[in-house]
């Protein structure tokens, strides 16, 4: 029973990591206006206003925020788009 449970847990964890192993991170910079960053998040990712502002504030107060997760190719596309908007963004592998 115990063994079965442990196996189940491991499998679940592995699945989550396998599905969304990469992240798009946007970093704070002293230049971009908060209203601009939030507008970019809404327009590009299609986040509702509240979510976009929550992410923007997280970037502002914590220095960075994960704005998307998914496969590497998709994350690179997002980062390219963010660079197009003038935001500082990076791709990184999700921490396990």
């Amino acid at each position, binding site marked *: 029973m115990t063994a079965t449970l442990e196996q189940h847990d491991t499998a679940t964890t592995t699945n989550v990591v396998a599905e969304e192993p990469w992240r798009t991170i946007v970093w704070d*910079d002293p230049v971009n206006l908060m209203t601009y960053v939030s507008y970019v998040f809404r327009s590009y990712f299609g986040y509702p206003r509240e979510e976009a502002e929550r992410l923007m504030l997280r970037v502002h107060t914590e220095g960075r925020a994960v704005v998307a997760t998914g496969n590497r190719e998709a994350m690179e596309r997002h980062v390219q788009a963010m*660079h197009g908007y*003038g935001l500082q963004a990076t791709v990184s592998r999700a921490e396990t």
Partner: protein
Amino acid sequence: MIVAGRSGGEGVRIVLEAEEAMLLSELADQVDSVLLLGEADDPALGRLLPNAYTDDASSSREFARYTRDSLVDGKRQAAQRVRDATAVEDGDDTVVQIELDQSEAWGWLTFLTDLRLILAERVGIIEEGDDAADETRDDYLRAAYEWAGFVQGSMLEVLDPTDS
């Protein structure tokens, strides 16, 4: 400068004094030049085209190899459009009226961002609210930086009005 909504349509209307238009045109031309001629180690270019990986130089280079041309093209195009829209004939003293639809407005917003990133690098804006180390040489750039932020903020108020 006046930034207002467009009558009966999405987008934004910008009215610039001839002097402001000339300044913006000149700045847009400079942004275009930085993108065209910028040395690889120009820190301003580093702000416009940052590394995509913080801890993986080879992936960063690969990413740059595939994306750089198209990013530079997009940014140059935005700068050139602003430059052309704000071009004023010598001796022409009238105001310049510019109408932008949603997509054209995005071009302006991203240009203004790139412009501010370059100016910030040139005057050494590292920390928010850091006003130390102001040199006379930097006053013009700093004023342009503040003004570009004001234009962008005004555009956003029209394009993305909040309830408050």
